[in-house]
Structures are given as C-alpha cells and as structure tokens.
C-alpha cells in the first residue's frame, strides 16, 4: 500500500491526484490523505502545483466532461476523508470516460457521486430559496448559510437571471461574497459584515409576500411535515416568508 499526503486545499488535492496517476502506482493500492503535521506521519508529501492541477483538469475535461462536473460539485462539498475515493474515481474516469458515473456499484464511484449529488441538490435548492432584499442605494442583497460552498455557480445563475440589477450574495458561514455590477461578476471575502439599511418600500413588498404565502395554503390540507421535508428548517433563518415564526 502506497501512502501519500497533501496540504488539504482543493488545489493540493487535484495536483496530488495528478502526481499519483503520473507515477504509475495502482490507485486501488494507494491511499491519499491530508498532512496532519504530526511527528511520525507516514506517507510521501506531494506539493501543491496549480499548473499541474490545471493540466489534469484540462485532460480530464477532454476525456470525461461529466466527470469534471462531478469533481467540481465534489469540491463544493468541502468534504474531507474521501481523497482516496476521489483518486480512484478519477483513475476510472480516465479509463472509462463519462461512463464512470454509471458505475454506481463501485464503492468509490458511489461515494464521490453521492457527495457531488448532495452539493448539486443544494445548489439547485438555493436557486429557489435565496431571497434578495432591496437596499437604500437601490442595490440588492441576499444572505445565506448553505452547507456546501455553492456561491460561485449560484452567482452565475443570477447573473443571467437578474442581469439588470446590481446585487450581492453573502455566504455568512464562509464570509464570502459575490457581486454583480450589471456587467460582470466578482468574488471576495468579507471579514466584517453588517446588514445595510433596507429601502423604504422593502418592508411593504415583504409583507405582500408573507400574505401571499399564508393564504395560498389550503387549510383543509395542512401538512407541516411535508413542508419541512421539502424546505428544511435550517434554511428558514433567511426566508422572508418564515420570519416571525
């Protein structure tokens, strides 16, 4: 069994995988993990090499575009401990192309695809559950705390949808933000964040929405369990219609 270590960053992970594949080791007999900096750690440390990671992405995109998509969702999940599965998944993707995503009976493929699917599902959910509020200067702000790091693809979605308005998306869990100025997207981190003042009309529209939300339900069919299973309570904090409950 060969053991390798990397620095714990997504880039480090991809470049380590590239190095292992290049070395010719059998992925089924190889283990990859994060370096913990303990005294007697076993394994060979692989340095992060962005250019190398980029090159691996490029080759994989040619061979298996769907697998690159899965890999991209997988990194959004910010999961640790599945590095070895990812290594074997990518080795299989080079071997079989996009058909690899159908090999769900393979434990490593299953593990990677399941994680990626979870992140993908939350991304889709946030496309619906994100709420923008109008600020005093006329721009818009949406706040969220998703489990997965979905801000980049989410911002791209809204850059097509809400093209004509200036907006910000703030991920309060990761202190990261996206900004659309009407023409281009930018991303950054915010160390400090305080919610700016809302526009005077904002409260009125929010009340309209709350009224609609309340009256659209059929009282004879009340089903709070079904509501919660579709819209878990962890998202309610930022949902206009769930304020004051």
């Amino acid at each position, binding site marked *: 069994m060969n053991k390798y270590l990397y620095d714990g960053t997504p880039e480090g992970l991809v470049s380590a995988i590239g190095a292992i594949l290049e070395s010719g080791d059998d992925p089924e007999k190889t283990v990859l993990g994060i370096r913990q900096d303990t005294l007697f750690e076993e394994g060979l440390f692989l340095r992060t090499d962005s250019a190398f990671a980029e090159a691996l992405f490029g080759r994989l995109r040619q061979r298996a575009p769907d697998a690159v998509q899965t890999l991209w969702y997988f990194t959004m999940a910010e999961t640790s401990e599945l590095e070895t599965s990812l290594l074997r998944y990518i080795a299989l993707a080079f071997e*079989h192309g996009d*058909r690899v*995503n*159908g*090999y*769900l*009976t*393979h*434990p490593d493929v*299953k593990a990677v695809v399941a994680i990626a699917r979870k992140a993908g599902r939350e991304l*889709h959910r946030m*496309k*619906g*559950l*994100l*709420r*923008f*509020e*109008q600020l005093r200067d006329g721009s*818009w702000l*949406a706040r969220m705390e998703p489990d997965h790091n979905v801000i980049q693809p989410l911002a791209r979605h*809204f850059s*097509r*949808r*809400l*093209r*004509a*308005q200036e907006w910000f998306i703030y991920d309060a869990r990761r202190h990261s933000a996206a900004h659309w100025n009407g023409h281009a997207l930018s991303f950054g981190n915010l160390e400090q964040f305080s919610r700016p003042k809302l526009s005077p009309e904002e409260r009125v*529209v929010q*009340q*309209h*929405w709350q*009224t*609609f*939300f*309340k*009256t*659209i*339900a*059929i*009282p*004879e*069919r*009340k*089903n*709070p*369990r*079904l*509501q919660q299973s*579709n*819209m878990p309570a962890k998202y309610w904090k930022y*949902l*206009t*219609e769930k304020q004051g409950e």
Partner: protein
Amino acid sequence: MELQEKITILSGAARYDASCASSGSSREGSACGVGNTSQGGICHSWSDDGRCISLLKILLSNDCRYDCAYCVNRSSNPVPRASFTAREVVDLTMEFYRRNYIEGLFLSSAVNVSPDHTMEEMVRVAEILRNEERFGGYIHLKIIPGSSDELVRRAGLAADRISVNIELPSHESLQRLAPQKKKEAILAPMKLIGTEAGVSLVERRKSRKAPRFAPAGQSTQMIIGASPETDLQILQLSQGLYRKMNLKRVYYSAFVPVNEDNRLPVLSAPPLLREHRLYQADWLLRFYGFSPEEILSDDAPNLDESFDPKTAWALRHPEFFPVEINRADYATLLRVPGIGVVSAKRIIAARRFAPVTHEGMKKIGVVMKRAKYFITCSGRPFDKIDQQPARLRQRLLLGDGSEQKQPRQLVLPGLFA
C-alpha cells in the same frame, strides 16, 4: 381597497388550482430585461399544506357570474370580492421576481362580464410583462372557456404554458355541477392550442425567429371526488387527453368541500390518498408504458389504496416475475415495483461494468423493500421468496411501514413535468 387585502382575497381564491409547475420552458433572458426560465423548473418555497410554490398563483378577479356547485367563488356565495388592475398584477410579479420569491406568474380569473372581457384583460397582463417590462420569466395563463380564438392565440404567444380546466371527469357531471359550462367550450380551445403549438414547432424548425406558442405545452385540471366517476374512467380520459390533445400534464385535485350544496357528496376530508394514487397511475401512463386497462379493469375500476398502482399490478401478474436484473431490458425493468425511471437507467449503466448484485441495487437507489420480492440478480433471488400472491400481499403490507398509513401528497418535481 388596499393591495394587501386584494392579495389575501385573490390568492385565497386561487389556492384550489393544483398546477404550480414552472418547468418545460427554457427562455434566455435579454440583456435589458429581467428573468429567464429553467427547463427543469425551480421551486421557491413550500406552503403550509406542503405544496411547492414556484409561481405567483393568483386570480385577476373572483367576481363570478357562474354558479358552479364546487367552487368557492360561485356567484351565490357571500364572499368578499376583489379585482386587480392589470398594472397591479404586473407590478406584483416584478417585485416578487426581483426578490427571487417566484419563477413567474400563474394567472386565472373568475368570469364576470363575458369570457372575452376577462380573457382580454388576462392577456394584457402577460403582454405588458413581456413587451413593456421585458420579463423573461415563466407565465402560465388559464384560458377562459368560451373566449375567442384570437385571444387564445395571443395568450399562447405571450405565455409559456396555457391550460383549460376540464373541471370534472365527465360530461354528465359537468352538466350537473357546472351547468353554465359546456364541454364543447372546454374542448374547442384545447384543440386549437394543440394545433397552434404543432404549427409553431414546424415553423421554428424552419426559422429560429418564428414565434413560440406555449413552449411548455398545455395542461388541465380535474376535481376528484366531487362526482361519481371511477379511477378507470378518469385514467382513460387522461390517456385520451395525452394522446389526442397532446397535453403535457393532467392535474388531479382532491375535492375540498367549500360549499353546502345537496348536489355534492358529504366528505369528512379531501380524498388525498386517492389523489396521490391517481398521480402515481398518471406517471405510469406517461413514463412507464402502461395503459389504463392494465392498471384497472371493469371488475376492479378503482385504485387500491394500500398499494401503489405498480405494486398492485405486479401482485396480479406473478407470471411476469421474477425479473432478472442483469438481463432484462429497460421496459421490463420499469415494471418492477421499487424501480423507477432513474434506477432502471442506472441499472443498465452499471451492469456494463460488472453484474449488479443485491448490494449494488441498494447503491443504485432501488427501493429494495418493494423490489426484493420481484427480482433475481444473476439468478439469485433476494432470499427464499414465497411468491404466493396472498402471502406476498401480506408481506408487502406489513413490511412497508413507510409506504402509506398517512396519506402522502404528491410533490410534483419539475423534472418530468
């Protein structure tokens, strides 16, 4: 009247419309406009009855001259009446859309002066949204039976989806419970929409610039349990609508008794489980290659409440089983209880690599608590299975704690809508 009050009255009056899908249309937004649509649809919230909210579902007016027995807005009901102006609906849609509350607008209306009068106003809302606001989001318009062909055409050009409600599953029931509505007035616009949509598809194949007519197709809705039709009759009607009228979706709405009327049955609760079973059976018609006569027969014309319709079919057809997972074709896999469209495709993809085992079936996402009685993997059954139908019924009932007990309401994922 305050806008707030109008919203209360006119969303309360619209809540019995089942449809809320925002799928089936992909519209790119324009650079100066607001909004686009997504092929799979997006749900934005879930109301207290657990149903998905994806559109601002609202009536333009609830001031109705008709007096249909089942309807909360019928003229003889002493309920508060309200009407929006076209501008109010447009502004509300835009304000909600910019905040990402909704995918778009679902607009229906009661009929006061005349069908054309109401339809004209509804079409105007959609046309203002498209032409003045450059709105690229989803629009679903209800067609008022009896309105002119020209208005139906304009509705189809402005909207993503249009629908004509069939209301009740038979001509006789319609006559009894909604005597002012005529079957012909419902079927004529359905036919017209089907034709126009077909023409538009042909034109668009010739030129990408040709206008799109209701790109997300047409749907309809019928009320279940207010009239005596059997499930077999209902499914046959749906099948006819899918085949002959080219409908995208038929919605079933469990009858909620909102009026006292001796023409209506007395129910303690809306028949939610029956509604759920009908949606499952409808799914079998559209995606699983079943016919209504396979699901039900004249001897047993109603769906079994204890089992989903596919399991019920499997119990009646022991000769079809067991199905060998590593050899069966797609259509055969689809007939196994617990295997859906997604898992059937996944089985076929996975067995290219290696034979699928029982363990593998779980990884693929097959509902093994149902499927295990009906399959073999490389010749091996799950365990020693007693295929005797009566005992199998019993095992499925007892072993399936989660299968029902509580009437579950179908959530309509946008995926196939």
